[in-house]
């Protein structure tokens, strides 16, 4: 046994070439991850229409054609590092890019397809503010649900106190009234997230320097997605520049 180790050690005694530096390795890995995510998003766009159609058919089979779709309005937000909201009121929203970033922030085992082609994206703009929602159909082996992420730029600074305070609720109510929600603050990697739950679903709100990000989850078919996981998505998703 030791002979083999000795053989290997002796083979390795010869000088080895210099290693690739860590920054280079990281850059290549990141590029690969981005390429994979782009492929996922592209393929997901094709699949999304089919999934939405299936979802609609399932609603009909439930005998409840009038069943409201998962709320597409803003729900709740969570802001980690006080990134500024992107200047989408000037450039227009890059929802495809944001869908990709959102997909990258999902926990392991969760697949996603952008809900493009139906009500996947919506944007409301004014002269100096906007609210832009991006939706993903998120699925596991057990079911699926709708994850919505809404970036709101309202020009207001992030609250400094309790994120469940009445003043914060009032600010968010303009976009996402959730009066009877249970509210708690979850901190992910130092990023405080306002997390609320209602009978309709869960919401995590992350405040940005001049707005906030609302991530909400509406389970369709019993997909487990805890409020902690939702808060983590809100805290870790990269805000586009």
């Amino acid at each position: 046994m030791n002979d083999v180790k000795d053989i290997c050690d002796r083979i390795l005694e010869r000088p080895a070439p210099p290693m690739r530096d860590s920054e280079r390795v990281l850059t290549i890995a990141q590029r690969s991850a981005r390429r994979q995510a782009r492929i996922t998003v592209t393929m997901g766009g094709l699949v999304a229409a089919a999934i939405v159609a299936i979802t609609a058919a399932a609603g009909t089979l439930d005998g409840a054609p009038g069943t409201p779709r998962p709320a597409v309005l803003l729900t709740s937000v969570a802001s980690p590092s006080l990134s500024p909201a992107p200047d989408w009121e000037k450039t227009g929203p890059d929802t495809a890019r944001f869908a990709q970033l959102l997909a990258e922030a999902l926990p392991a085992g969760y697949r996603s397809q952008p809900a493009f082609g139906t009500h996947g994206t919506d944007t409301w703009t004014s002269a100096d503010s906007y609210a832009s929602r991006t939706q993903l159909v998120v699925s596991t082996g057990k079911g699926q649900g709708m994850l919505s992420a809404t970036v709101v730029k309202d020009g207001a600074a992030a609250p400094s106190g309790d994120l469940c305070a009445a003043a914060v609720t009032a600010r968010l109510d303009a976009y996402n009234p959730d009066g009877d929600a249970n509210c708690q603050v979850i901190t992910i990697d130092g990023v405080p997230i306002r997390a609320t739950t209602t009978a309709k679903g869960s919401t995590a709100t992350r405040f940005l320097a001049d707005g906030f990000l609302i991530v909400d989850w509406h389970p369709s078919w019993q997909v487990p997605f805890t409020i902690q996981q939702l808060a983590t998505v809100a805290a870790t998703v990269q805000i586009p520049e």
Partner: protein
Amino acid sequence: MGLPGWGSRRAIEGDFVAFYRARGAHLRNTAYLLCGDWHLAEDLTQIAFTKLYRAWRRIDRRDTLDQYARKVLLRAFLDERRHPWRREYPTEPGSAALDVATSDDDATESRLHAALMRLPRRRRAVLVLRFWADMSVDQVADAMNTTTGTVKSQTARGLAQLRELLNDTRVDCDSIEESMR
């Protein structure tokens, strides 16, 4: 730092770079012992770390990173060997950075290297992982997606074949290239 797998992007990148700096050289040496070519070893190491980066959030325990990385490396090696274009040259030669100086003491190492390279690649992988990388039979079986019984039998056959090869004076450097095709 929060729970492993749930760190921020910046924290993940920091951890990733730290892990590469700590274990990259060892992993590349493992790759070299498997494939016998520094160019390909560099490629395999990059493949392993790229896949590791993609899976970083899914790896729950930091103490399993090494095992995961070696598993990815091994499978990349075995996959690479299935690619027809890899049967000729693992990597386009010509990179001066990967040239290795030789010395008069290389004769013995070359002979040892030639013997190791003449083992069938899965058998060679078992020996390298078991006795150089200090992996258990269970870990090797898991990495190779095979049974512990197969690992044990491959180990015994590999050791016997290696002894035989080392006693074979015909083993030389030229045999490396042949065995890799």
